[in-house]
């Protein structure tokens, strides 16, 4: 590693036995007080169901448990430890304010079966979050039920199906560009449609002529991500939407990349009929293992009757209620009203920023991605012309000539203390390096990240094998992924006690 390149942090290099392996027979984590009731015999009470222990159950003290899991947690890399440039994931900072609000007693402890008259505060949060998301997208109605983006897609396509079925013909196909997230064709298939792929053109966008040829009267919808997964805005979206609508289809927008649009452009204005949002991407609720996720669906007025039931409504007396009387609804897609705590956090984020703040967030995210692109394009190949939106896609084409691929560069990036970018996606770019810095990264942190990637490009020129063996500073280096997949060991088994 070049000494002039500052690393974000050293990787903690220590090993940790499993909690089972730390076990000592007879050790106990708690010290129970003497019994103040007559002793009962579980063996007598349970008969043949009784057992006097669990094989392999770890016997450890309290402090050993705390230290074991705390040490494991230090191996983690999260949005709180550094830049997390995983393209298409919008790994932005989750403000602490969200957590403070979500822990307010009334919001954190209310039971979902609390009578509506006593849960007006929570219902107000749901109502207002949906209103804010409707304003941001320009749509007319929102359901907060879906638990993640892919479930939002499924919900949206099922609503399209219900609407078309009512008009006499659900149709057979949904058009999905070849740059789409893999969940798009999957949601289409689960909804009973067949996905028809559309090829991107040389500018990385959907081709209007290609769309026109594919858009028959058997096509239910166009399912589009905008900006697309190359980070490029589909500038012909209005013409595309007009074409799809003229032939009786609807336009679904995958809102995974909404971090490029919030406060600047509204999907409803450019022809989208139904879309989902990812609160865990765009609206700063925890992402990944810290989830759960949330994938609200927003629709135009004509699709409102099909939204998942129940919907949150304001009554004439001003109170908020859950309306279950929804004869055309596609039904419930999630218990109660979705992941409520995520709505609380998203609303806190939206209100804390306000319209001006949200717009600046978007502009900073786009600026950061273009800054990274501009500072790296002389050393890494840029397959599609700039400018980009909230993320940029480079490729390993130059480095591949020396046998170094995108995954190798990503592994070397770990040595510099950064989380890797997204490798090998979108599929239409061979050796893709997909970088989404988000608005959370400062210029100083971006400069460190850029310096690391530039340094790796130099290392590849000097000694490709060094990069091919990376990472060098982690507890484990190259894992045998092929054997792990061919002969998986699916669980840990206790070894006999010695």
């Amino acid at each position, binding site marked *: 590693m070049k000494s002039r390149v500052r690393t974000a942090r050293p990787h903690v290099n220590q090993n940790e036995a499993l909690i089972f392996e730390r076990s000592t027979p007879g050790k106990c984590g708690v010290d129970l007080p003497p019994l103040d009731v007559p002793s009962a015999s579980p063996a007598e009470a349970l008969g043949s169901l009784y057992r006097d222990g669990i094989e392999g159950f770890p016997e450890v003290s309290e402090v050993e448990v705390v230290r074991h899991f705390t040490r494991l947690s230090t191996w983690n890399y999260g949005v709180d430890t550094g830049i997390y440039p995983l393209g298409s994931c919008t790994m932005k900072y989750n403000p602490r304010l969200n957590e403070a609000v979500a822990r307010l007693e009334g919001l954190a402890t209310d039971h979902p079966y609390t009578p509506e008259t006593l849960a007006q505060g929570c219902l107000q949060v749901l109502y207002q979050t949906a209103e804010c998301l409707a304003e941001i997208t320009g749509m007319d109605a929102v359901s907060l039920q879906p638990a993640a983006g892919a479930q939002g897609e499924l919900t949206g396509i099922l609503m399209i199906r219900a609407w078309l079925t009512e008009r006499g013909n659900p149709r057979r196909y949904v058009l999905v560009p070849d740059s789409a997230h893999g969940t798009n064709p999957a949601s289409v298939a689960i909804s009973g449609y067949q996905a028809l792929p559309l090829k991107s053109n040389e500018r990385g966008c959907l081709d209007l002529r290609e769309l026109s040829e594919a858009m028959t009267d058997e096509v239910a919808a166009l399912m589009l991500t905008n900006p697309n997964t190359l980070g490029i805005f589909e500038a012909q979206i209005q013409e595309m939407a007009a074409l799809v609508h003229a032939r009786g289809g609807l336009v679904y927008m995958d809102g995974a990349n909404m971090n490029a649009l919030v406060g600047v452009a509204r999907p409803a204005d450019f022809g989208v009929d139904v879309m989902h949002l990812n609160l865990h991407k765009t609206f700063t609720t925890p992402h990944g293992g810290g989830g759960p996720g949330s994938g609200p669906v927003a629709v135009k007025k004509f699709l409102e009757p099909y939204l998942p039931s129940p919907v949150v409504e304001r009554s004439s007396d001003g109170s908020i209620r859950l309306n279950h009387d929804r004869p055309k609804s596609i039904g419930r897609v999630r218990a109660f009203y979705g992941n409520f705590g995520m709505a609380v956090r998203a609303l806190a984020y939206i209100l804390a920023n306000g319209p001006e703040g949200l717009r600046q967030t978007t502009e900073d995210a786009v600026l950061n991605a273009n800054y990274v692109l501009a500072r790296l394009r002389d050393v890494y190949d840029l397959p599609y012309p700039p400018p980009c939106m909230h993320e940029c896609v480079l490729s390993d084409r130059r480095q591949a000539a020396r046998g170094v691929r995108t995954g190798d560069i990503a592994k070397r990036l770990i040595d510099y203390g950064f989380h890797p970018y997204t490798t090998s996606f979108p599929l239409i770019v061979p050796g893709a390096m997909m970088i989404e810095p988000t608005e959370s990264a400062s210029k100083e942190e971006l400069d460190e990240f850029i310096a690391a990637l530039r340094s790796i490009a130099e290392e590849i020129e000097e000694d490709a094998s060094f990069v091919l063996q990376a990472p060098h500073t982690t507890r484990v280096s190259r894992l045998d992924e092929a054997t792990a997949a*061919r002969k998986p060991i699916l669980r840990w088994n206790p070894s006999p006690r010695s």
Partner: protein
Amino acid sequence: MSYPSEFLYTKDHEWVRLEGETATIGITDYAQKELGDIVFVELPKVGDHLKAAEPLGAIESVKAVSDVFAPISGTVEAINAQLQDKPEIVNSDPHGEGWLIRVRVADPKETERLMTADAYEAYLHQTQAH
């Protein structure tokens, strides 16, 4: 690795070797390289009818699961059973021991749509230059 001149090729990176009415089908060296280490090969059953350009099975690598498309229509006469336990053969010898299936060709005219080795290599060159 060179692309045998006696094979025909598809844009989806399958190869076909014709011997009379029988065709042996596999994936190209380019395809196995792009897929990376292959961990599972899913093949049709003997006797299945395949239609050209429709999936005949799937190949799973450490990177992705990809459909394999039938280059031509026909009836499956044999499958390469050793791939069940040793899918890595597709990586090590894609044009030989790593063949996938043999089919009885339904319509020899369909082979006219396939590429020669030269045409396939030109196609690869063009794809990679993109």
